[in-house]
């Protein structure tokens, strides 16, 4: 009985390790690689392609209306974008909501482009497993950082990385 329990526990631990390794590799695989290109319709009606932002530092944020942390993160990123836009920083907020209506209501008055990934294809392309997720892309179109989740104080970390990319 005891041996069976031990085997069960070790099996569960192994599964846990594999899952953890999987989540680490998802973000890890993106880091240092060329950011997968995509085109999505924005709430303004324009189609936007990521590769057309080459030459700018892009903060690609995946969010949804039901996620409170996402809204808090967007507010911080929006302010950062407004401050550094002239220096070449852009924020692309990709909503993973099924309905575009709610997302457009939440982001009404946003100065940055808000895109709608209705089919979740771009979310799958970037392997979004946790929200909010912010992918920081450098001027050459390479993924430099992947931030999952948001806590008060995370914005300082974002600012530091964005400033470092601007200095490059």
């Amino acid at each position, binding site marked *: 009985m005891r041996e069976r329990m031990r085997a069960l526990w070790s099996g569960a631990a192994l599964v846990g390790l594999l899952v953890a390794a999987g989540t680490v590799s998802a973000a890890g695989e993106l880091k240092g690689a060329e950011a997968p290109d995509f*085109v*999505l*319709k924005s709430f303004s009606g*324009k*189609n*936007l*392609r990521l590769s*057309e932002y080459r030459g700018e530092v892009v903060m690609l944020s995946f969010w949804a209306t039901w996620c409170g942390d996402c809204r808090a993160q967007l507010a911080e990123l929006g302010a950062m974008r407004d401050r550094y836009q002239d220096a070449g920083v852009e924020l692309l907020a990709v909503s993973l909501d099924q309905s575009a209506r709610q997302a457009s209501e939440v982001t009404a008055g946003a100065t940055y482009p808000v895109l709608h990934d209705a089919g979740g294809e771009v979310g799958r392309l970037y392997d979004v497993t946790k929200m909010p997720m912010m992918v920081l892309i450098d001027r050459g179109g390479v993924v430099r950082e992947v931030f999952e989740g948001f806590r008060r104080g995370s914005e300082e970390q974002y600012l530091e990385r964005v400033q470092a990319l601007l200095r490059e």
Partner: protein
Amino acid sequence: MLAKWIASVSVAALVAGAASVGAQEAPIEIAAAVPQFSPRADSGAEQQTEFRTLDEDTQDLKKQVLDLNRDLFLLEEELLFPSNTQTAVFVSMDVGEFFGLDSVELKIDDKVVANYLYTERESEALIKGGVQRLFIGNLKAGEHELVAVFTGQGPHTRDYRRGASLMFEKGIGPKYIELTISDRQTKQQPEFLVKEWE
């Protein structure tokens, strides 16, 4: 004591005189030293030549890589899409005054093979005369049906959706089809044409 003082002053005067003579002679010494720098200048020129040849070598290497890449691309296309089954569909725009292109959905034999969203920059490039390859694939010889659905903004910035279709015969050679969006001035409407290239 006085003799000692006179002697020290005369020695000091002699030293000062010698120093002034040395200072006067110094430019002569530098001038004489100039030829000594010439070997350094030569090595600088050599270095520059070395850099130039290195730069040329890098450019040559870059060109070779580009050529190789082009050859590989052509080889890949030939292997993936052999000419006897190759079918390609292109999109072009003429004027674009009555239509702002948003997307094109392409169906061949009732199967969606391409769905493309156009950014402002891309549609501008098409209006300027660019031609986009929307689809490349393999089709067996025989009769096929192509349906293209265009969406965008029509006259008076109204949402516009229009389809165009073509029944075509795929022979042994490659098949090229062009989807053309043009303005029909008489009707003040856009026109969608599907053309086969021979």
